[in-house]
């Protein structure tokens, strides 16, 4: 064999190995690609964690019973991926039929403007969502003059779970109608718990989540209905600003958050604590109260792993001198289903979304499997029996007193949760004043509106 032919074989062989290596390294969803023959396969994304996969399974079962001949392929995605890698998938050439996006991401609006998401006005009409979704939810899901995503459940934040046995031992009267009447009442409870050797309010202050939820809750009572509505919509440059973040309403809300720290209502080390650690401290009986969302109720009431004392729940108190004295449950809808423009089965995907908000799906999947609160308001009360009892109480409270749209989680991150969380943490560590927090929020809003034009 000559040197030239040996060399040729070596080069060709190496190139072949390299190509094999590249093929092995290439990413991409291998299932479903080139499935020209699988025309009746609907691809649906499902968020990992909690009861989400089980809820999806229950929805799929009910949907397929009404649509024989179809199959559903689910794709699990992590929460973090909604704002990163899933954006690429949803805007690519092979998106799922029913996808999930976080509407707080600026990319969500970009996709709408680029016509990469299907407008769901016909689904809204067919499912009568103008009426069946609350006014707040309709507003929350409206972007660029239309509706591009739907919510399967609603969430409540700013719940104070409390140790009723510890309250009794400390001589604290349980909040009437699940409401602390004032900051003074909450402070009094905190002081009495400390006197008994317990931390008052366990709070997951690390990161931006819980602290931005808290200011969203205080804002609900610090602002009038009109002011709150303006705060919730002015990220849209076409909406005139009538309520500034430098106005007394917002600074009052921020001052009240500061009061939680200044008046020692927060447990020690709250600003560096994870929510899970705060919850563990409460379950272990080291803290008398816990700030969390409604989703904590099933874990807290679990017979095996939950609390070993009598559990109660209440809403955070209104701010002092509140413009809106009645504290309502703070609702949010972060997990949204949508349809990419390049989805293979747009019509069937719309039918799927319509089924998602049907009474049947909301009862069998959202309530019975997920123990989550329905996103629609016409699920018969009797059907709420499938909910965790504490969550059912919250749902009834929502029906009776209404809910308030939580500002922070409901608007784009750059002008909401991520921005305000950092600013509030600076304030709580002495790096910023209340006024500076308001100014930071106002500057962020102005910059966002400018960039959005």
């Amino acid at each position: 064999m000559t040197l030239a032919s040996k060399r040729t074989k070596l080069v060709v062989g190496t190139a072949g190995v390299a190509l094999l290596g590249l093929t092995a390294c290439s990413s991409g969803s291998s299932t479903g690609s080139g499935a020209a023959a699988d025309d009746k396969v609907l691809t649906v994304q499902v968020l990992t964690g909690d009861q989400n996969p089980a809820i999806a399974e229950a929805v799929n079962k009910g949907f397929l019973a009404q649509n024989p001949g179809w199959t559903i392929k689910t794709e699990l995605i992590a929460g973090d991926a909604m704002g990163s890698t899933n954006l690429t998938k949803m805007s690519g050439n092979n998106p799922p039929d029913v996808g999930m996006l976080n509407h707080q991401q600026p990319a969500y609006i970009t996709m709408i403007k680029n016509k990469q998401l299907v407008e769901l006005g016909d689904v809204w009409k067919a499912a009568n969502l103008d009426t069946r979704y609350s006014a707040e939810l309709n507003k929350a899901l409206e972007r660029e003059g239309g509706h591009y995503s739907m919510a399967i459940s609603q969430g409540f934040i700013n719940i104070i779970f409390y140790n009723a046995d510890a309250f009794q031992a400390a001589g604290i009267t349980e909040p009437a109608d699940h409401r602390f009447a004032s900051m003074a009442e909450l402070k009094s409870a905190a002081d009495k718990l400390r006197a008994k050797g317990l931390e008052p309010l366990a709070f997951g202050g690390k990161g931006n989540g819980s602290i931005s939820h808290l200011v969203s809750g205080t804002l609900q009572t610090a602002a009038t209905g009109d002011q709150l509505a303006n705060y919730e919509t002015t990220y849209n440059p076409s909406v005139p600003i009538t309520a500034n973040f430098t106005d007394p309403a917002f600074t009052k809300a921020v001052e009240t958050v500061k009061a939680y720290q200044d008046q020692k209502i927060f447990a020690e080390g709250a600003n560096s604590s994870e929510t899970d650690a705060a919850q563990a401290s409460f379950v272990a009986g080291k803290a008398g109260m816990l700030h969390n969302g409604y989703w904590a109720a099933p874990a807290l009431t679990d017979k095996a792993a939950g609390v070993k004392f009598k559990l109660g729940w209440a809403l955070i108190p209104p701010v002092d001198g509140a413009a809106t004295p009645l504290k309502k449950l703070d609702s949010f809808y972060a997990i949204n289903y949508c349809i990419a423009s390049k989805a293979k089965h747009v019509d069937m995907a719309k039918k799927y979304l319509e089924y998602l908000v049907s009474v049947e799906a909301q009862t069998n999947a959202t309530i019975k499997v997920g123990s989550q609160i329905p996103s629609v308001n016409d699920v018969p009360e009797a059907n709420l029996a499938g909910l965790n009892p504490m969550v059912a109480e919250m749902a009834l409270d929502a029906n009776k007193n209404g809910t308030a749209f939580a500002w922070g989680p409901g608007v784009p991150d750059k002008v909401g949760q991520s921005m305000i969380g950092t600013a509030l943490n600076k304030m709580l560590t002495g790096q910023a004043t209340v006024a500076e927090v308001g100014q930071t929020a106002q500057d962020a809003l102005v910059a966002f509106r400018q960039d959005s034009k």
Partner: protein
Amino acid sequence: MTQATRVPATGGTAAGSPAPRGRQHSSKVTVIAWALTLPSLILYIIVQLMPVLQGMRISLTDWQGVGDLNYIGFENYAKVLADQDTRDAIVRTVIYAALGSAGIVGLGLFLAAAVSRGVKWSGFYRVIWFVPGVAPGMATAIFWAQSMAPNTGAVNAILGGLGLGNNHNWLGDKDLALLPILFVTIWGGVGFTFLLLLGSMESVSEEVYEAASLDGSSEMRTFWSITIPLIAPILATVALLAFIGTANNFGVVYAMTQGGPGGATEIIPSLVYRRAFLQGDFGGASALAVMSGLVLMVLGMIGVRMGRSRQEA
């Protein structure tokens, strides 16, 4: 009468006769070398180089994660440098990297010196000091963050037992939060450095130490005047690697404080993550990452040059 030497027409060899064995062997080795290098090179280009170039491209746009790239020139760079939080993060990253790498190298050097001189149970120490280096970084960071929690964490519990109070909130204090992060960084980073320096020290000939001993040199004098200069190239390299690794240490910072409280521990990697994946500002995040990468690359080149000149000396 002289005999003319026939000059070959090609290749320095007589026409029609085979190439000298040495040259034939050399070209064969070159082909084999390229063939063996090619797969890794292709992978490097695809997995490392292309993403870096794409990142540089994105840094010149206002891309939000979807849609086409809209070029805006160097606007992102100007915005990033004008932002006070970013400037603070840059300064903080330099301080963190400097202190972290100094701690890693200093402690690694001390431990290597002790073990190489045959301290008792040195075999045990070789293993035990290396173990933190192989533990997953995020897991150890989460462990230490939980351990430092006021009232409930193990560290506070021990301090409480010693009568030193049990409600220290280091990770929630803007002035102190960087210290536990530095501790965890050094604790996790010292293992590999220790091993590298130990290997380097043990490669120094015993005769050198014997000669120094005969000349009446003390242990400390021997260490500073002989050992350190002889291991200087390795020392410079590990110091540089420690600095770069610490400056890029997203995991420990994000797991322990997420850059808080109130941005007090925000370094460039955590800020890049926040801007890109929480705020959707991929252009600005890429600009910051590119600037950071360029600075570290320059530092790396300086360090390599310094290390090379020491070796030549």
